[in-house]
Structures are given as C-alpha cells and as structure tokens.
C-alpha cells in the first residue's frame, strides 16, 4: 500500500507514520513530491507549497477532529450537560457505567452480539460470493452487477425494504419459509429475533466487500495455479494454499474495518424501530424489550435526550478503547496469518 514511487531521500519532510489503512495521508506526500520534481531547488518555497496543499486537511484534523476529540475526553470527566454545567467529577461517569447503569450492559451485550455474528458472517459471505463470481461463465458481468447492487443502495430505503421483507405474516421471507413448512419467526417484532434480523440484512449487502475480494482474486497469478496443477493439487488444496493466503490481506482489512463499523451500529436500529409506532410498551427507543438498544443508541439517548453529555462522552471513550484493543490485537496477530506478496511481512 505504501507509495513505492517515493524515494526515501526525496521526501520533503519526515515520513508520516501511516498505517496500511490510511490511504489519504499516504496519498498527500505524493502530491508534494510531484511538485518537488518539477523544481529541484528552493526547498523553502516547496515546503511552503507542501504545507499549503495539505493545510485543509491539517486544519480539518486539528479543529474538526482533534479539538472535539480532546474536548470530549475532558468532558468525560465532567457532568457536562451541553448547555449550562461542566463540573469536574473525576471518574464518576466511568464508575457509573460499570456499576450503576444496567442499560449500559444491555447495550454492550447487544452490540457485541451483533459484532460477533455479523463480522465473520459478512466476511465469509463476501469471500464466498467473490469466489462464485470469479468463475468464467457467460453473463458473469450481469451477476456481478446484481450482487454488487445492494451495496450501492443504502440508508432508510433499504431498511424499509427489509421491514417489508421481514413482515411476519405477509413478508417474502416468511412466505418462502412457509413453502417449506417452516413457521417463520416474527423477526423485528420478537426480541429474540431482532438482532438476527439485522444481521441477515447486513448479509444481503456483502457486495461492497465482495468487490475487494474479487479484485484481489483477479490479480492472483495463474502461474501459481498452474504450478499447483503440475504438483497434482486438488481444488481444495488450491483454495487453501493459494487462493485463501492471497486473499488474507483483504480479509484482514475487511475484518478490521467491519469490526469498527459494526461496533458503531446506530442508524439501522434508530430507523427500523422508529419506523413503526407500535410496541407493547408504547415507547420504542430500544426496540422490543430493548433488544436493539445498541451502544451508540444508548450513547445518543444519553447525550441528546437526557443531556448527559459527560456520561455519553465517557461511553464514547470506552468504545474507542474497546475498538483500539481489538485493532491492536488484530495488528499484532496479523503476521501469523496475513500473507503479503512482497514478502516483507510474513
């Protein structure tokens, strides 16, 4: 992923510490380097130009990201209510999170449940679909388009579509289950089935990840397969020893990003619960029996309904902490199973 064009000596300033995933920051020095190539002397002007070019990003980072970020860190130690108070309360918010707020645990559990099932399933689903779409049969482009289509559609329209599909007595899903004599569940209306419903919905739009895998699959050198054929490898062996290892960098990327996004699930629950105005208790904030009260939804309620911004910020930082640990964990263990072509990492 690193820009190999850049000669180390030519870099106008110390290389930024970029991770594999940080596409934007890796691309920026390239622009600066290009300007440098045109005029080889006068480093000062070039530095100036370089900074000028990246200034929108730096300003954005400092004022729109870093500023609020640090502010929220501070706020998490206060009883900030957005409008009138901000007293330092030490670790009270964090203490309350772990010891007094039952809904915190409910929301954490709901979110973990979603992450644990949706991340592996969508990743496996995307790989599987990519493999199928990598065959050489006529009309493949049409299939690829069809499978990618759900990734293009997004937002509220999709949620409404799924609310109809999952309708217990007239929805398409239960109608089909009925053909096989299966009495389908009430999906979004049954606390036991609400989360599986959302996971199912997520599976439908694996097209985005599929595209990445497909691109990678197309790039695998046929020579590898030929060599394997000569050695008498069967299809399974080829898959496990060639295809899968070649896919691992993308799987790695996919797992990290989809873990992060899954932890942040909010919209789906927010829209699909509020879409209907009926429930046994009248209030619909967290879905039937709070089964869709996700972490971010609980955080949002605290911030903007109860005006408990201090507590919400503490929750946000704890989520950051969880995701951070998981990502570091992934990165640490990645060299055990992620295979890079260049061979610089094993």
């Amino acid at each position, binding site marked *: 992923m690193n820009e190999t064009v850049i000669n180390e000596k030519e870099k106008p300033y110390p290389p930024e510490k970029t991770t594999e995933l940080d596409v934007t920051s890796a691309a920026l020095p390239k622009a600066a380097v290009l300007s440098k190539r045109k005029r080889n002397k006068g480093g000062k002007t070039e530095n100036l130009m370089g900074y000028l070019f990246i200034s929108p990003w730096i300003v954005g980072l400092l004022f729109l990201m870093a500023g609020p970020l640090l502010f929220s860190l501070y706020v998490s130690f206060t009883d900030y209510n957005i409008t009138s108070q901000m007293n330092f309360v030490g670790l009270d918010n964090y203490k309350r999170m772990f010891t007094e707020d039952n809904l915190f645990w409910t929301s954490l559990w709901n979110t973990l449940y979603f992450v644990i099932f949706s991340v592996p399933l969508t990743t496996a689903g995307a790989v599987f679909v990519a493999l199928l779409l990598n065959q050489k049969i006529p009309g493949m482009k049409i299939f690829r388009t069809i499978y990618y289509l759900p990734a293009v559609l997004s937002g509220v329209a999709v949620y409404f579509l799924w609310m109809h599909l999952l309708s217990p007595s007239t929805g398409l899903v239960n109608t089909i289950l009925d053909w096989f004599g299966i009495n389908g569940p009430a999906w979004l209306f049954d606390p036991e089935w609400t989360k599986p419903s959302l996971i199912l919905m997520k599976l439908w739009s694996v097209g985005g990840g599929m595209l990445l895998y497909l691109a990678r699959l197309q790039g695998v050198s046929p020579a590898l397969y030929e060599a394997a054929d000569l050695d008498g490898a069967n299809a399974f062996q080829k898959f496990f020893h060639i295809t899968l290892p070649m896919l691992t960098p993308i799987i790695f990327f996919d797992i990290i990003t989809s873990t992060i996004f899954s932890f942040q699930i909010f919209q789906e629950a927010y829209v699909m619960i509020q*879409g209907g105005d009926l429930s046994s208790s009248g209030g619909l904030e967290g879905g039937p029996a709070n089964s869709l009260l996700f972490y971010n939804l609980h955080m949002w309620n605290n911030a903007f309904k109860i005006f408990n911004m201090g507590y919400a910020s503490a929750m946000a930082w704890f989520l950051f902490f969880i995701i951070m640990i998981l990502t570091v964990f992934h990165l640490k263990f990645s060299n055990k199973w992620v295979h890079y072509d260049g061979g610089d990492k094993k």
Partner: protein
Amino acid sequence: MARGFRLGFVLILLFSVILSACSGGSDASDKNKDGKVVVNFQTFWGSETRKPVIDKIVSDFNKSQDEIEVKHTFVPWGDIWTKNTAAVAAGNPADVIVNDLHSVAHRAKNGQTEDLSQYLGEDLKNTLYPNLWDSALYQDKVHGVPFATDNRLLFYNKDAYKEAGLDPEKPPTTWQELEEHAKKLDVKKGNSYERVGYYPLWGSFGAASWMSNADDGKGFIEGDKMYFATANKIEGLEWVADWQKRLGKKNVQAFEAEFGSGQTNPFISEKVAIWTDTANFYTQIRDSKTDMNFGVAPIPAFKEGGRNWNEGGGFVMEVPKGAEHPKEAATFIEYLTSEKVQSYWAEKNFDIVANKKAADSVVNALEGDGKLVYESAINNLKDTPFHSVPVKYPDYKSIVDPIIDNAVQGKISPEQALKKAEKDVKNSAK
C-alpha cells in the same frame, strides 16, 4: 525542518482566521432593513397541511407589526431539538421554537430555556387550560407556553358492533366491559384472527397509560414520590398482559407488523374494531373516505364509577436560552396562543389547542363526526394528567419500558417487573 513546521503553523492560523472571518457575518439578520427586530421562529411543521397554516399565521403577524418581523424556518422533526440543543450551547439559538410539553422542566433544569415570566401578560395564564399551563412551569416560573395538546379517545366501529349483536350506542365504560365487547367482536378463523376486537397496546395508549388509568391517574413518579408496584398498577399490568395470552403472541406480533409500516390503519381497514388514538386520528378516517360508521368514547374506567383517566401530551412555544430577543419572542408567543390564531390552527389541523375559548369556538364551528370527536377530546381534558419527565429521573422511560415489555411477553410477573422497575429507576439517579 523546524522552520517548516513554523510555517505550517502560520498557515493554519491564517486559515482559521479566514474561517472565523467568514462566520462573523451571521449576526447581520439582527434587524432587517426596515429597522424591525427579527425574531427567528423554528418549527417542524413542514407538511403540506401544516406549513401553509403556520406561514399564514406568521405573515398575518408580520403585517400587523411595525416593530417585529418573524422569520419562520422549518426544521425536520428528527433534527429540530438536537439542533436546538447544539445552538443553545453555541449561543446562537432561534428566538422561538416548538418543543415537547412533557420535558419542559427537564430542559429548564438544564438551562436550555429562558424564563418568560417577566415578559408575558398577566391574563395569558387564564386564557389557557390550567393543567397544561402548569405542565410548562419549572419552579413556578414559565419556561414554555402551551400551544396544542392531545389526549386519547376510544374509536369504535359501530357497524361491527351491530354485526356482533352489541348496542352501537353503548361503548364500553369500564375495563371489564371493554374486554367483554372485544371478545364478541373478535372474528377468528382457525388459529388466526380476521378481526381483532381490541388490543390495549395498539394505538397510542401504552401499558404505562393503562396502569396510570388504574391508579387514579398517577404516573410512576409524581414529584418526589414513586408509585410503581401499587396494587392497582399490578392489577392493571396483569390485565394488559392477559390480552396477549388470550390472543396469542404470534397473532399480536403479526398484526403489529402488518400495520407497523404505517400504510394502512387496521381500524380503518376494519381489521380491528376498537382503537385508541388521539383526536387527530379522525382526520385519517375522514380522508380515507371509508363508509364505516364509528363512534367515540372516553378511555374506560378501571372499575365502575371510576374516572376515565387519560394520558396527555402536547407542544409548547419556548424561548431557548441565549435567544437574542426574548421580549419580542414573548410578544409573538402571546399572539400564537391568542384565541384568533388558535382557532384558525385548530380548524385547519384538528389539534386540540391550548386556548380555552378557541377550543370551544371550534366545537361550535364544527359539525358531524368532527364535532363529536373534538368535543369528546375537550371533555377528556378534565381527566387528563400530563406525566412530565421527572427532572431527577429523566431516563426513567428507557429503564421502565423494556421491563414492562418483558412482563407483557410473560417473561416476568407484573409484580416482579414493577418492583424491579422501581429499583432500577432509583439506582439510575446518583
């Protein structure tokens, strides 16, 4: 290299100066070119039916004024209050905003609203319904002026009543009668229902409302006192939970899902014979052009001779903290709650308005079913408590609702549920 960083820093500073210079221009709308004070007014009334009405009200006001000019901005329902909170924090809120009646005190406590007591005329209070007025007070100060309210009515299908051999002029008056009627109105085919007589949690009267109805109109939290596991509330919740047992969880969920998408209302499509909803629901029936005959009745009483305890909500006009022109805003609010404006609003939108005379005049102006519904809703006001968000436990609903949900689903007994709810709510306040 250090120099390079310095340069970069200077550039950033430069950039931010430009940014802040750009944003400085927003105060220009303070006074318009005629020297009138500009009052910014935000509502979520952007629909085809509501927007023309509120725009007309605003333009009438502007024509009658030579000191104030009101500018109305529509902000979508999903955003308006979040944006308002942010605007209050940033110090540039609107001057008048429509907000929720239940949470006036909650916002006042958090310093989000201006105290309007000094700006409003003495008489205003007496022109509005007193229990509404009281709901918008915080520590005896006026933090919002009620604009419109709602309460629940029992809509019942008279044709279905006749068909089931019931007297269409005698709607249920007690819980017991309601249950008896509902059973007779059920039309069952095999294991599923073609028509459900009634289900207490459909429409807009939730389990908490039924429990309040059973418990003399008392909510879970009144002032400093808690009324969770009272004998009446337990009995009330047991009754509510029994309906699902009788009809079957599957049937209830299937029905809910069918009309959850909001396209067809099951009462209008005659799949449910009795329905609880606000007076506005009448406009849906009217506009559906159905030829069904219906009647309305108050929410039945818990026991014979008891009161028909209802559940009220509504909207207030509020001046966010830090608004530039609270005095002018108050003048506009007085206009909005005047008899003339309120009756115009009520006629056009079928809302129960806060102004007593306006509400009465609308009853007189209406005829037919509309009159029946509006009058019934106004009669309900005497039995309508407004269960405001308790300032000490603003989050109580999100704690209590799922527990009650579990009781309705039969996972926990009503008594255990209410006791647990009380305990959890108490724990939630530090």
